[in-house]
């Protein structure tokens, strides 16, 4: 049975994000993912507030990276959260977003190795080990918590490229795939399967999540309008191979990229085509969204994550998802 997750970007006041988190729990979501960007509210502060105001939902960073936060500190943060909400904490970790890292002057060095080493350090620390680690990216000379961690914390790898996806299958408890279209999800799940098979596991041993850009409203035009800004950024950041997979003109994508770079939002958003919306979002009325989720389930996903913008009005959208979409996938 598919599980539903929801992603919030803590760019608004903490109480709005927590209001929506409580609402998501009440409406039947299983997972809550909070993004980690230095220019928004801090992910662990937001998650700590989540522990106070929720009772059931599983939550974690979605996703943090090994460059801006040292693995030892990430291990400490999630182990501490897991003490406040035992068994409800997960960790999403990926290589990070190059544009954000560039802003901070931090180099994205050996992303695959960095994520792999980071996961090893975090796993060992959160299992209570004293860790000495000599890696290619990280070196830990001897670290151990002065408190007893409260059990194993599942680690999800945020992945897009084939090597990261395979690694996620090999060492992750889950994988967060940034994609919305069956073509991309099929490709990604095949890569995950390679890693799973290398590790002698089954695909069902890994929680495979489609981490989507999602917009729902009873009125298709309103849902689409809300999706356009997010899709423009996805198009601008997508490699040629992905754009070509969807038959998207590379020249149009370049024009969007240039317009965004120049902060010409209206121009960038005006260049977003229906094909781009189709490729890079799950968008429409509840019935249209149900149809797309059904297609994605056939690709082998086990979690569907509703990501930004969620809908033109977040509160209304969470209600719609909880009342019209999630029940269609429950026995």
């Amino acid at each position, binding site marked *: 049975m598919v599980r539903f997750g929801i992603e919030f970007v803590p760019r608004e006041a903490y*109480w709005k994000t927590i*209001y929506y988190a409580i609402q998501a729990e009440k409406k039947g979501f299983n997972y809550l993912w909070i993004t980690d960007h230095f220019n928004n509210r801090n992910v662990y502060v937001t998650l700590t507030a989540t522990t106070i105001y929720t009772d059931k939902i599983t939550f974690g960073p979605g996703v943090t990276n090994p460059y801006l936060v040292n693995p030892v500190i990430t291990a400490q943060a999630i182990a501490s959260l897991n003490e406040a909400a035992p068994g409800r904490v997960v960790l999403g970790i990926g290589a990070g977003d190059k544009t954000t890292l560039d802003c901070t002057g931090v180099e994205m060095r050996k992303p695959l190795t960095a994520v792999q080493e980071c996961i090893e350090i975090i796993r060992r620390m959160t299992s209570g080990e004293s860790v000495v680690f000599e890696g290619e990216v990280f070196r830990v000379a001897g670290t151990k918590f002065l408190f007893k961690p409260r059990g194993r914390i599942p680690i999800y790898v945020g992945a897009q490229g084939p090597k990261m996806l395979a690694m996620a299958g090999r060492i992750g408890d889950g994988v967060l795939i940034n994609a919305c279209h069956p073509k991309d999800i099929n490709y990604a799940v095949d890569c995950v399967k390679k890693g799973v098979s290398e590790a002698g596991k089954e695909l069902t041993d890994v929680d495979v999540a489609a981490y989507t850009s999602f917009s729902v409203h009873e009125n298709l035009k309103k849902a689409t309008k809300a999706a356009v800004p997010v899709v423009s950024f996805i198009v601008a950041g997508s490699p040629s191979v992905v754009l070509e997979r969807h038959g998207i003109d590379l020249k149009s994508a370049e024009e969007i990229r240039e317009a965004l770079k120049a902060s010409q939002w209206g121009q960038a958003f005006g260049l977003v085509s229906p094909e781009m919306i189709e490729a890079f979002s799950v968008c429409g009325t509840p019935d249209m969204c149900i149809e797309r989720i059904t297609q994605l389930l056939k690709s082998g996903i086990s979690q569907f994550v509703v990501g930004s913008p969620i809908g033109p009005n977040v509160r209304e959208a969470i209600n719609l998802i909880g009342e019209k979409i999630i029940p269609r996938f429950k026995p």
Partner: protein
Amino acid sequence: MLRDVIDMTYHKVVETIPLEKREELSDKLIDAILVSKNEDKMPAGLANAILYHWQRGLLTRDAGLAALLEAAVLLEPDKTMEILEGELQLMDIVKQLKRSL
């Protein structure tokens, strides 16, 4: 303890709101607060009181509704009066609020 952060004026006012109007009022006030761009006007204690009552499903009860009303007046005073007067015809509530504040 949570009652301490909510102005007693609002407690007295919400006690007079008819039961059949409470759910709709609560819903409209939440919408006004969530879409407000004046989030910096929300006192943290009041925000926490709203979250506390929301988690427990108490935003239509006196304390929850009082917290919502206070927050709405702080963040969106004109919109709040429009909700009370124009949309829900709660003229007495508006009079009480204007008299008390």
